[in-house]
């Protein structure tokens, strides 16, 4: 086994701490901010692996959009003034079992893939240019399907929002 750099352990600890705080804190807005820390940790892990594009996209999409969306959802549903003892589901042991199961499957898949992937000693240099070429070249069909899905979702959101206007005042 290769030894990993201390920076990796620091970032992993940061990400895990963010994730744990997300499920353990009582104030919902604090949870939303903690999940942002976890997102940032993941982005830094990408950067540590020299994956600039993935890292910056992670910050732009998850911190810039998803975290804001979560925060808006909390504030618009009056979730920020919940009781002080928090909102813990009674079925949390079941959730733990499912999470452990997912983790086991993912871990097994990663460990099993070590033999299947050719071992490279040098880090492949992937530029943003290469990613762009791949996206509109080889992977153009998945890209278009995702674009179609997002457009449909946007139109759906507009229709949901429009419905209220038609009600007589």
């Amino acid at each position, binding site marked *: 086994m290769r030894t990993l750099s201390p920076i990796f352990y620091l970032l992993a600890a940061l990400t895990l701490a963010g994730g744990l705080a997300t499920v353990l804190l009582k104030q919902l807005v604090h949870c939303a901010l903690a999940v*942002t820390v976890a997102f940032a940790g993941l982005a830094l892990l990408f950067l540590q692996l020299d994956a*600039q594009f993935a890292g*910056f996209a992670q910050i732009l999409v998850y*911190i*810039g959009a998803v*975290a*804001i969306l979560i925060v808006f959802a909390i*504030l618009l549903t009056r979730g920020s003034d919940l009781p002080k003892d928090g909102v813990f589901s009674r079925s949390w042991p079941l959730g733990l079992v499912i999470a452990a199961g997912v983790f086991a499957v993912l871990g097994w898949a990663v460990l099993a893939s070590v033999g299947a992937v050719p071992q490279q000693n040098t880090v492949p240099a992937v530029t*943003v*240019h290469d990613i762009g070429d791949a996206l509109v070249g080889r992977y153009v069909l998945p890209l278009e399907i995702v674009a179609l899905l997002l457009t449909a979702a946007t139109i759906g959101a507009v229709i949901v929002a429009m419905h209220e206007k038609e009600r007589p005042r």
Partner: protein
Amino acid sequence: MIATPWATNPFFVNLDQIFVLLRNWLVGFLPAALRPAAGVLLGVIAIVCVFPGLFALTTVFERKGLGRIQNRIGPNRVGPYGLLQPVADGIKSLTKEDIVPLRANAAVHFLAPLVLVVTVFMGFAVLPVGRNMVLVDMDAGLLFFFAMGAATELCVFMAGWSSRNKYSLLGAMRAVAQMISYEVVLLLSSVAVVMITGSLSLPKIVAAQNTYTGVFPHWYIFTPWGLAGFLMYAIAATAETNRSPFDLPEGESELVAGYHTEYSGFKFALFFLGEYLAMFSISGLGTTLFLGGWSAPFSFLTWVPSWIWFFGKVMMSIFVFIWMRGTLPRLRQDQLMNFAWKFVLPFTLLNLLVTALWRFMGEGWARWVVCSVILIAAYVVMGRLEMRSEHFGRRRYRYAE
């Protein structure tokens, strides 16, 4: 290209590179192993000193300019012509009592201004402020800049929410809604430049514009798609930095001061600093993308040091910001959102198509005509359609007559 012999004169070449040479000279005193790290550290120190210094100057400049627009003199008591006003302001904000509301969320309230200033400073790392003068030449520099910009939105929310004040929260919600709406436009108008240059690296974008036909430069603003893109970028940048006429999040008459109502002393100064730094960085990016970055406006002026051009262009943008603040009234919330989603965003999307057309029509005058006609026609048609419901004419007063 017509270049003056001065451009190759060793004195002007050295003057152009003076900061790079200074850095190399200072780093030369250290052992070779420490040199790269020390070079980066010096770059960071330069950024952390220069831009807040510029911020101090800009506050005087802004108050003087606004004073002149409103037919008064502006600050004139501290130092000659009131130039030492920022020093007095700094001492005042440092010695002021730091008040935190009783029910405020102390940790988040403390973190918000700090994280804001740090993320805003990060954006400067990829801006080329002169020839060979960029802290980190990243392959995905533009993406990094926008990623850091996106992180500031969360800080604004943190500040507004943690204060436990209805004005703060309302201001923060307005700010976040506005920043998200206009960030889309900001990104899409920059994508046009990326499509033409074929690179996300900011030094490469400047290099692509740093060529001349006769004495005139190839800045992107001098093309139809570039002009349209720059105008959309400028609108979005004004909204993104919460400047007038898009300053609803801080509208004094409605919200006291918006998300920083409950901040005083040094924390308030940090918000103030963050706001102006965001203005500098977004003007710097606009300069880099559309106005040729550090390149000279005429080929016979290339002997003037590149950093003078960059900062000159940034300060011109700041002047326009101040001018707009002094002249335009504030928009209403629904006008702001309608403008973003019904005019600016569709126009920016159309501009992307026009840019693609420009790219594939090849050299020649045909693309100039076709692209200009499409953009002007779209502007006229969209303007007419959206203004149809408004009835212009003599103002009618319902109650006063």
